[in-house]
């Protein structure tokens, strides 16, 4: 199952945002991978791997998950990537 989302964080996928997303990915009901148009898929529960995608605001991210819980896991993560996590209260 594949989902595409544009990164909303205006500062890009930086350390704090990536660690928030990695925690959510670790808790999600299915393993999720993320790739960009020019970098290969990485595990969404790895902060270091997420950082190294070098994703900037507006970068298209392709999320992939399989098996039971895949849709729910993709919904959760796609939602986080599409939120500007730097905005207070977001």
């Amino acid at each position, binding site marked *: 199952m594949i989902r595409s989302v544009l990164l909303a964080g205006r500062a890009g996928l930086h350390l704090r945002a990536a660690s928030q997303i990695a925690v959510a990915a670790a808790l999600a009901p299915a393993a999720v991978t993320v790739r960009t148009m020019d970098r290969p898929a990485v595990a969404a529960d790895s902060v270091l791997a997420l950082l190294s995608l070098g*994703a900037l605001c507006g970068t298209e991210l392709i999320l992939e998950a399989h098996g039971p819980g895949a849709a729910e896991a993709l919904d959760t993560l796609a939602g986080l990537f599409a939120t500007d996590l730097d905005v207070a209260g977001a």
Partner: protein
Amino acid sequence: MPDLLRGLGASAGAATGPAYRLADPPRLPAPRPVTDPDAEVDRAYAAIDAVCRDIGRRAAVTADETAAEILRAQAALAADRTLRDGVALAVRAGHEAPHAVAAVLADHRAALLAAGGLLAARAADLDDLRDRVVAHCLGLPMPALPEPGCPFVLIAVDLAPADAALLDPARVLAVVTSAGSFVSHTAILARARGLPTVVACGGALEIADGTVVTVDGTAGRVTVGRTVPAPAEEPPPAPEEPADLRGRTADGHHVALLANIGCAAELAGAAVEGVGLFRTELLFQHHIDPPTTAEQIDAYAEVFAAMPGRQVIVRTLDAGADKPLPFLRDHDEPNPALGIRGLRVARRRADILRTQIAAIAAAARASTARVAVMAPMVTTVSEAAQFTALCRDAGLPTVGVMIEVPAAAVRSAEILQVVDFLSVGTNDLSQYTFAADRRSGELADLLDPWQPALLSLIALCAAAGAAVGRPVGVCGEAAADPAFAVVLAGLGVTSLSMSPPAVPAVRAALAAHTLEECRAAAQRALAAADPAAARAAVTRL
């Protein structure tokens, strides 16, 4: 003779004291062949675990939430599975533990640098992680902060979040780093604790320990002075509340520093000359019907009473798009940002505006505050003229309009023939000039206040005001950026209105530059090709 070093001001304020340098972290030793790969993987993992625990402990003892959040993220980075997997592979390929860690992090570092911008600034976080793990592998301590026995100015190549988070403002007066950027974690943490900081300061590492330096974190300057080691008897001067609240450039040109508020409580302790934007929406929210005249008079009088003899600019109700009100929501708009909002509400409900103006006038008569009133979302000269007539009829002599719509900015000279002053709302002016929804994170680059097109429109308004001797202020949050405030002053803007906590840094930035320097900064920003170039051209001043 004192030398002057220049860098980037990363955290405002000034401090003087003896400089002491943070020692460099342990270096990687010459590589040796790996004889027992399993033991070597264990050695690397043990070092990584120790660093996780160390950073986690620092996060736990930090009272400051910004610092704790950054440290928790760093601990998560150190604990990352990808790091361990990569290190195990590198060890099995023949690298010793410290070299394996350095090699894996170097790959990720390259990816961050390639991404550029803010992410490139995060490469420093990976360097710190590498240094810490390498030190643990070698059984060496990470360098501790100097302890000269008196408060000092910390000099370093860069400061890791783990160190910056633990800086004790009672011991460290200021920070100067040779590397780093405005958005590095060092800078963020220094700002959070109000520590004057200059980053990217070439020559900082040449300063000998014990040399007295003066750090100006606003202008990004470090004056390297006497080597007389007498700081212990010279307590740093206590920060004083400026007695004169008027904002001034270094050569005395007045730029009014005003507050943006929604209610009187926000003025507590504010060191401002007056109120540049009193938002009245708060009073109207949570009301099924518009508030009565008496309710409004009470709320306005409370703010006026807090500013005796001083200027208070009241903005009439700015409802619409992002601020729907129950009693105005009787219609659906496909595109509310371009619909009935701001002054346009009076097209449907003139009674609400009339009641509000009458209430402001009544409260103003009972107060010594110099009350002015302005309308939001004005588009044409005739709208401005109608608003002025309405206010003057109610007995309010000083009337202005906000410039938020490009059409109004372009005709600012004509609008100034029918109003007393203009106030530029940069947030909405950006949204409408760049056709970019102000809530869209994806379009944040277009909404950057340093966009040259936005600066051109502000310059146009300021020039129109100067031509007829009428005030033109800026009341968007962009005015709170000290470097941007210098540009605005240089463009000829006569007042800057912002949330009260932002005022001291802007006051310091203005005081650090002459009007001529502000003008030069404004010309450079206007001439820049894009926001990054504009920012760089000004901060290098």
